[in-house]
């Protein structure tokens, strides 16, 4: 199964607070791949809005995203989209 590990800079002005986290989870729900976000010493399921929000990710920090599954490439793009705030 394809696996992609990618470091990203959070440029979304809202970080990954409630609104962007909700957007992310909503978008990811359409995909099969498992998605993990690592920040600091924590790693959480990116499809859990509660887990993502409570990472407390603010603008300007670096996170690592680990995607594993057949649609991993599309998923990484979606994550990048939300994280960059585009």
């Amino acid at each position: 199964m394809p696996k992609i590990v990618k470091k990203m800079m959070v440029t979304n002005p809202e970080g990954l607070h409630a609104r962007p986290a909700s957007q992310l989870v909503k978008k990811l729900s359409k995909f099969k791949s498992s998605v993990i976000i690592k920040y600091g010493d924590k790693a959480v399921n990116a499809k859990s809005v509660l887990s993502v929000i409570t990472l407390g990710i603010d603008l300007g920090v670096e996170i690592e995203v680990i995607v594993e599954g057949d649609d991993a490439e599309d998923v990484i793009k979606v994550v990048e989209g939300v994280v960059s705030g585009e």
Partner: protein
Amino acid sequence: MASKIFIIHPHFIVSEGYAFGHLIILTKKVDFQKDQKITLEELKKAAERLKSKLLEAIKKETSQEVKEILGFHTMILDDPFLWDRLSNKASHGKITIEDLNKVRDEVIELFLNIDNPLIRERQHDVKDVFTKLLYEIYGEEKKRISPGDIVYLEEIFPSEVVEFKNLGVGAILCKKGSHTSHASILAQSLDIPFMFNVPDLSEYDGSLVFVDAVHGKIIVEPSKEEIKILKELIEKYSREKAETEKYSLIKFDDVKVMANIGVLQEIDFAKRKGADGIGLFRTEFLFLNRKAPPSEEEQYLAYKKALESFYPDEVIIRLLDIGGDKKLPYLNVSNDENPFLGVRGVRLLLKNRDILRTQLRALIRASAHGNLGILIPMVTILEDIIEVRKIIREIEGELKEEGVKVGNFKVGIMVEVPSVVFNLDEFIPHIDFVSIGTNDLTQYMFAADRNNQEVSKYYRDEDKAIINAIQLVVNKMSRVGKPVAVCGEIAGKVHMIEKLLNIGLKEFSVAPAKVPRVKKRIYELKQLKT
């Protein structure tokens, strides 16, 4: 179609009365009791229902902000992390409300650990969603209830009794129950007909049902002729009851009819029913269903409320009377093989001095607000009384030293063990009053457990042995001019009142709902004499 009749043994009538209405079967428990369990499946279904309601609301909503919040709530309901946590806590596919709340608090904790205040704020959404979910689980079935309906459920919780009263429920039928539960006490207080040990009536959901909680009978789908007769029966009963209620206003010069209460909600009810004081205030309700004992302040406020409400009438408050059969997490209880003959009442209190002292401090502080009597439960030997009185003196001293106002109060004992009846003379100098608990006294005199159906024929609380015991106590006490009350079931039995008056009893303490009936009987007997 022929009507179907179920006979219920009168032993299982908790609160008397008649009702006629549609049967509503409540399959789910309807309260937020923390040890109550629900299946994950049920929880998921409730979450789905709630989600579709929220999505509906989002469609109609015009404010973008509110839309986003509601959308966030739907996502919480779907959250895989949350469901993982819930599954972990569940055993055999079921989770308790307490664990559900624990998961909620864990999630909230995650929010609270974040420095960013905007994120921390979102904890409220989590709380909100959990609250809505609980309502979804338990609210659904109760929406079916309309005034006059008869509800059937497996078990009932105290808060539900109050809720059903407010919904205008005609009668409550339960599969499980007990006479001593708070739900039962409340049903009596609030005057809702209530029977337990009722067979499963699920197949009659929605049927018209007649409930006779006077003789113990349930008639499903009665015929037209039967309905006519039954309606007349109900009318006659209500008329007589209204007639009896008038007697709540009567006060006698020489006899007092007081109330037994077991929850704070009963204070006002007892007052309305014309109780001449509280003859027995059971304090167990303050201690049950919690992890730590109630604080002195909490107890003080409860006792103060009762004392103020009845002032200048007397309020007799009984010290915690818990048996070894009830395990409270904060109580030091030994494993008695026979709890009724083991560490209960004052025996337990003397082994749990902190609890005893806290309760006594609260009581003695409250004594400044009314006419208090402190009642010691399950006394068997003189040393018990002397020990408790010693502690009372110490606490009085402490409080006075602290500058706390202390009123006058009396100290009395429960007479519920046969030996006390015979040894009363040596106890008398150390007590101000007694209250005869004929229920326990009967259990101990006839060696028959009141809750055991198998031996119900041996449980004879109207027997001459009991009457003689009461008479002995009344005689001994009246010689020294100290009062005696009877607070067992017998005091509320209309046909026993004449006998009790004849042997010189002056104080009856009964369930609040029975006060008018007892007063009526006493009034009638007095009329006959003059």
